[in-house]
Structure formats: C-alpha cells, structure tokens
C-alpha cells in the first residue's frame, strides 16, 4: 500500500490527487475514532456552528459565531456564572466610586494567559485603546461610547489621541476606568467580548495575521484553541492555566464540521456525529418522531415593521401607522407564518428577557394592547380618508428580502393589509444587500426590520429610534422620545431608567406607532440526551458551554 502511494506521489500533481483519492477511498478503516459514547466518557462536545468565525480578534468580532469561540477562549474583567449573573472574572474585585463614574478593577494574581504569562492591567489598557483606535477601525468601537468611557467618542472621531482614553493601568494589577456619566449596566458590559484583554506582544509580532490561526491566538479563558482548519473544523480544549479551571468539567469542545445546511447537520446529529445543532421547522416533526431531544430558546432578536415617515410618504400619517399596529394578530402570524416553537408575540420593542431594576424590564414595565383588531383599524383608516378628503388609500409596497421565509412573511402581510387598507399592496422583493441599501436610502413604505441586542440592557433596543440613529430607517423624529433616551443615558439608577424607558416605549410604539413590533424570535435546537448545563444566551457566547458536562448516570442509548 505504501509503495503504491509512493509511486503515485512521484508523478505529477494530477496523478497524486487521483492516487490519494483512490487509495484512501478503499481504506475507510483509517477513519478517526470518535463516537458519541467516546465523547461521553471523555467529556467532549461536538457541535455545529454553521460557519467559519469571521473574526477571532476580540476587538473586531461582531457576529455570533465569532462570539461563541471568543467567549470560551477569553475572559473579561467581569464574567457570567452558570445562571447568567454578572460576577468578577479576570478581576477579583471591583470598586465603584460614589459618583458612579470611576471603576477600579483588581486583576486576579492567578489570572494567566494560555502560554503561562500573567494577565495584567496593561493587557486590558491595550485592548480598550485598540477598540477605539480610529486607525484600527473596529466596527464595535461604538460600544465604548455606549459604556461612556471618557473621551471614547472624541478618539473615534480623531479629535483626541488614543492615549487620552479614560481607561488606564495604574500598575500591573490595578485597572481604572473613568466614565463621562454613570452607566447602570457598566459591569455587565465588562463581561463582553469587545472588552476582553488582548496581548500587545502577540499583536505586534503577528500584525495583520493576528488571530487568524491557532498559533497567533493567545487567550486567557477556560478553553484553549488547539486546532483550526479553515471552513472545516475547530477544536478547543480545557486550559489548565485558567484561574478557575477546577470548575470546568468539559475536556474539549469541537466543531467537527461547519455545516450551513440545516438538513445535513440534522443528519449528522441523528447519526451521533453532533451533540448540539440548530433545528428548523421543516425537520421538527421528524425530530419529534425519532424522539430526539428538542429544546427552544429566545435568540434575542425582535422583529418589527418600520414605516417610512419621511415627508410626503404615506405612513407619515399617524392614523395609518396606528391602524397597522392594531390590525396585525401576532399570535396568528406566529401560527400561520413563522411556525417556530419558541417564537413569542412582541407588543413592545424591548424583549422579555431584558433585565430591569429587580425583576425583568417587562415585568416592571408592562405593555399590551388589543391586536388583530381589523374593525378598529378600518375605523382609523376611515378617519384618515375623511381628514385627507380621499376616497381610497393610495397603494403602497412592502420592501422584503428574497429568501423563502421573507417571501412567505411578506405575502402574509400583503394579504392582510390588502384587506385592512382596501387598496393595492405590492411586494418589492430584492436581494439582501439591496434591501439594506434601499431601507437606508428611504426607498420603501414598509420594511420588515429586526434587531439583536449588543449588550444586556434595554438601551440596546431603545436608542435605535432616536432622530440621529442610522438604524432609524423610517426617520421617526420625536423630541420627546430623544429627551427620554438622553435622560436614561445619563441616569445611573436602574429603577429611574425603567420608568424612562417605559414612557419612551409607550410613545414610540403606542402613541406614535413609529414601529410595529411583531415577534420575539425563538429558535429550536437539538441537544443530546445526558448533556447538561448548556446555557443559551441572547448576548455574549451562545451556546455557553463553560458549565456543561455529560451526565454519567444516563450514559445509555
């Protein structure tokens, strides 16, 4: 066998390929041994993340796939525990000044990088400065402005040098962050990827290649990257250097494949090749029939209709917007259109999981109204027609993507709105990027939009619709709304902020009906029997496998 392959190799590249393929094809016994039973015994998890992480640089990652890996490889000053509470991470202690504007973090003496070096305050200073550096141009730099770190906004605008950032290492173990205003959720921000420490020496040594391969990623988290085959597989193993290594039960987490195709991933799961993978509604029934463990969770996203309120546009009229809000039955929409278990109706902009002062925000700031009220909507439209002396509502269009799901959603809306508004409703179905460009340029009447949270506070949703926000595609302009948001930005009291947000949300959704919230998105996924401690998050690493383990008792099947 070896002589044969050696013969093949001595020829041209073409024959090598053929020889390689034919030879190895006939000996499948060489396949690597790793069944689900082996993984149970070794405390290893195989999962499908669907894609290659676009950025393993903590200061640059903006997507959920990158976050999953980064959240296991690195750890911020703060972190989350197995219940999702914010607790000290790489910092053992944090002191907040009376003004709420100065945070002093003490770095753990036993916090180490994966190569054994100590984690110091300088590593955080370097990372924070890098995040706002206009030359580095991180897409996530705005999070430093959200955190209100002193001078962050001016540095991004190139009005001040990077060294003026209000985040400084006093010595190796003391890191001080100064804020422009108190920020109620500052500690929770310090647990997120953009604020992870970064090693200056590694960045300088590797330059543009930083964080593009196993040997130029050095983390400080519970897991260490050991293999990365581009677009193919990744593997991380428990890091013995981690200060809290004794709390980590898993030995390894691996993405043995990067399958975009849900059907293929489903097949790998049911044959024992994966322990966690996403599930779509088409395969839900099969999964249930085969008695696979199906779980659901809120993925964090809220979807809503945005109406173009620019002057001269049809939906600049408030009555028509209100009609839209009450006409849609959110329940029916979920049952008939999305059909994903875990989807929930959205009456407000802020999703149910968002924390408030002591309970969740939604428990403290309830918001509901009657929907599916076609008669009520028609009454408002009649009033609009009388006021504008028209006999019929002018025709309008819905801007939508060209995916199968987007088509199904917009067709449902089209039929509903045709009935309610008694006029022609068109669908402008375009490719993804064209839709983004059109909504940005205001070339639409109604567009279906959505938002996923950047951090765990209602502000991540509420500031979207201030007058100057680029994501305010419909150009909703309200001085009262803007004022409430600014007040909330400057307040360090959570209970006061909940009140401000409640008022702002009522104004935005109910009074002005500037947007029409529809659903809080849910997702279904498959989880292998016996795997416990898997946490699904709306912000940060998702899934969070730091506290997961195989339950030895139920190691059957």
């Amino acid at each position: 066998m070896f002589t044969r392959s050696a013969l093949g190799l001595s020829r041209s590249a073409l024959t090598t390929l053929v020889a390689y393929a034919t030879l190895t094809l006939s000996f499948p016994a060489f396949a690597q041994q790793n069944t689900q039973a082996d993984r149970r015994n070794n405390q290893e998890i195989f999962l499908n993340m669907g894609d290659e992480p676009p950025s393993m640089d903590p200061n640059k990652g903006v997507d959920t796939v990158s976050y999953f890996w980064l959240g296991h490889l690195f750890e911020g000053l703060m972190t989350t525990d197995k219940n999702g509470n914010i607790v000290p991470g790489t910092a053992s202690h944090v002191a907040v000044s009376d003004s709420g504007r100065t945070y002093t973090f003490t770095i753990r003496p036993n916090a180490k990088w994966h190569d054994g070096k100590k984690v110091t305050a300088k590593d955080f200073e370097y990372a924070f400065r890098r995040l706002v550096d206009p030359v580095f141009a991180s897409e996530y730099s705005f999070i430093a402005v959200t955190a209100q770190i002193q001078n962050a906004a001016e540095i991004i605008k190139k009005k001040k040098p990077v060294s003026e950032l209000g985040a400084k290492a006093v010595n190796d173990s003391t890191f001080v962050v100064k804020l422009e205003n108190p920020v109620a959720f500052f500690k929770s921000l310090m647990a997120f990827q953009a604020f992870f420490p970064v090693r200056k020496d590694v960045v300088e040594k590797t330059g543009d290649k930083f964080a593009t391969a196993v040997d130029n990623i050095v983390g400080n988290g519970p897991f260490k990257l050991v293999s990365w085959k581009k677009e193919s597989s990744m593997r991380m193993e428990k890091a013995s250097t981690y200060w809290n290594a004794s709390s980590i039960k898993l030995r390894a987490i691996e993405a043995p494949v990067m399958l975009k195709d849900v059907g293929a991933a489903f097949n790998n799961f049911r044959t024992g090749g994966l322990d966690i993978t996403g599930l779509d509604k088409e395969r839900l029934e099969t999964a249930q029939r085969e008695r696979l463990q199906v779980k659901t969770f809120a993925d964090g996203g809220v979807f809503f209709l945005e109406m173009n309120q620019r002057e001269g546009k049809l939906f600049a009229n408030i009555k028509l917007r209100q009609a839209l809000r009450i006409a849609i039955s959110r329940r029916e929409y979920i049952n008939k259109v999305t059909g994903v278990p875990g989807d929930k109706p959205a009456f407000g902009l802020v999703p149910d999981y968002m924390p408030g002062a002591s309970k969740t925000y939604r428990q403290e700031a309830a918001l509901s109204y009657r929907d599916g009220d076609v008669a009520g909507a028609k009454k408002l439209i009649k009033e609009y027609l009388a006021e504008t002396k028209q006999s019929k509502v002018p025709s309008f269009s819905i801007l939508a993507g060209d995916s199968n799901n987007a088509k199904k959603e917009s067709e449902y809306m089209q039929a509903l709105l045709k009935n309610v508004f008694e006029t022609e409703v068109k669908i402008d179905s375009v490719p993804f990027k064209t839709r983004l460009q059109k909504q940005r340029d205001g070339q639409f009447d109604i567009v279906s939009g959505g938002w996923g949270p950047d951090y765990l506070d209602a502000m991540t949703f509420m500031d979207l619709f201030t007058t100057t926000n680029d994501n305010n595609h419909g150009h909703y302009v309200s001085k009262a709304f803007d004022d409430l948001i600014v007040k909330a930005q400057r307040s360090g009291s959570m209970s006061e902020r909940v009140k401000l947000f409640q008022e702002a949300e009522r104004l935005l959704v109910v009074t002005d009906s500037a947007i029409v919230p529809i659903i809080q998105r849910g997702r279904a996924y498959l989880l292998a029997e016996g795997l416990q401690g898997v946490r699904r998050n709306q912000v940060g690493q998702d899934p969070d496998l730091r506290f997961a383990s195989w339950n030895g008792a139920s190691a059957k099947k």
Partner: protein
Amino acid sequence: MRLLRFILRRLMLAVVTLLTLFTLTFFLMRAVPGDPLTRTKEIPEETRKNLEERYGLDKPLHKQYLLQMERIFIHGDFGTSFRTVGREVNDIIREQFPVSASVGLVSVLIGVLTGVALGIVAALNRNGIIDRFAMFLCVAGISVPSFLFAFIFQYCLAVYPLTVLKFNPDTWLRPAGWGEARDFVMPSITLALGIIASITRMLKSQMIEVGFSEYIKTAKAKGVSLVRLVVLHQIRNAILPIVSIIFPMLVFTMSGSLIIEAGFGIPGLGRAYMTSIQNSDYNVIMGLTVFFGGFLIIANLITDILYGVIDPRIRVG
C-alpha cells in the same frame, strides 16, 4: 514552431480576456446596491469613515481600480477578505481550491469511466436492459437537482445504515463532514451523476451515428472482426467529441459546487465564492473570478492542443 506561435498568441489573448473580466467584475460589483460595509446593523458614520480609510474604499473609483489592477496583475496579490479578518484571498485559493479540485477530479473520473462504459454498452445493446437503465439514469441525472440527490444519498447511504441497521459509525460513511477518505464517497457520486448522464447520452448517439457511416460498412464488408470493428473503428471515432467536452467539464467541476459543498460540509471554493457574493466581499469576488477565468482559459488552450493530437485533421495555428 507553429504550435509555439499558437500558444503565445493564445496567451496574449488570455491576458486581454482577463483584463476585460477584471474590469467588468470591478464595475459590476460596485453597480450592485450595497458594499462590504453594508450591514443589517448600520455602522456608525465615524466608524464607517475609519473603516473606509483602512480598506482604501475612500479613494476615488479610478484610483481603486488602478491600484487593484496593479496589485493583482503585477504583484499577483488578490488582497484580503473584508468579511473574514486577516484572511488573504491567495490563502483561500491555496487552501480551498485543492479541496474542490480533488472532489471534482474524483467525480469526473467516476463520471467519465461510468459514462463511457454505459454509453458503449447502451449503443451496442439498444433497448436491452442496460440501455433502459442507462437512459433512465440520463433523464434523472440531468433533470433531478443535485441537492435532492445529496439528500437521498445522505439518507440511504448514511442515516439509514447507521441508525436502523446499526452500522459502525467509526468506519461507515457519515452524512456530512470533511477530512477523511470516506468523505469523498457521497459528494463525488452526487456530482458524478450529472456527468454520467451527459457522457452516456452523447456517446450512445455518437456510437449509433458512427455505426451507420460508410467506413464502418466498408470495414464490415472487409470482414473485420467485431471486437476490432467496435474498438478500433467505432469507439475511436465516436469518442472524439467527448474529449472536447471533458476538459471544460473538468474545469467546471473542479471549481467547486456550492450545493455539494454546503450540503456535505466541504471547505471548497464554491462555498467561499457564494459567501463572498452574499457579503459583497469585493476582494474575494474579484480574486476568485480572475482565478477561475485564468483556469478556464488555460484549460481551453490545452483542450485545443489535445484535440489536434487526437484528430490529425485538425491543426492548430
């Protein structure tokens, strides 16, 4: 000498073709709404400015055009991906092309060998059972989309044996994955089906056509043995047009199939191409387009030369 002059002229023509391809791609990409920085979440204006500066997108269009042309055609550097931080397009091609190419090569090999065998047997054995089977395969191979075949194979060859028949998952085929020899099996067969279909049909009709020609009749009349007649006269003449389609077919198959790569988790170029288009990743789109263009041009050149070798009546130049 004539051959050399022919090759030189074709190579010069290739450069012109590539430059045209480059220019068209450059401007068409920018004519499509959205750019690499268009995201679901709008990037704040200041950050956007900083990013444009970093990537050179703030320069006037003609400057970007000339700079990129210089980088690609003089330095052979396709640049870096906008989407995947630090990922060089040259690395994408170097690492992911061999994957697509090996899958493509294996499927063309399977496809051509099976197709030629089936085509010959079907022609000699018209309306026989093999002929009927071959014709069924032809219709299916051409009309059924490959993702459906991928799905059927995944179920029949992996899911069913593993879950119902309890085959050993260590050695049996897995539904999707990459990195082991067994992972070649299903994607290659899926890709090969289309090739088998077109080759079988073409060869069968060629064989029949040649069978009616004057020189076959003459050979028969001369009393040439059946084996000699079929192998040396009929097949040799019938196979000629097949040769002319094999190379373009090979190039096409080696450049990667999005559906096969997505469905079986193969880290090939088809997948990279699709991702780049979805993200308006200018450098990757351009790099892969120019690469495929060059690959196709060279393959066509080789086909032309080979054709002349097989059929002495055709002389290049």
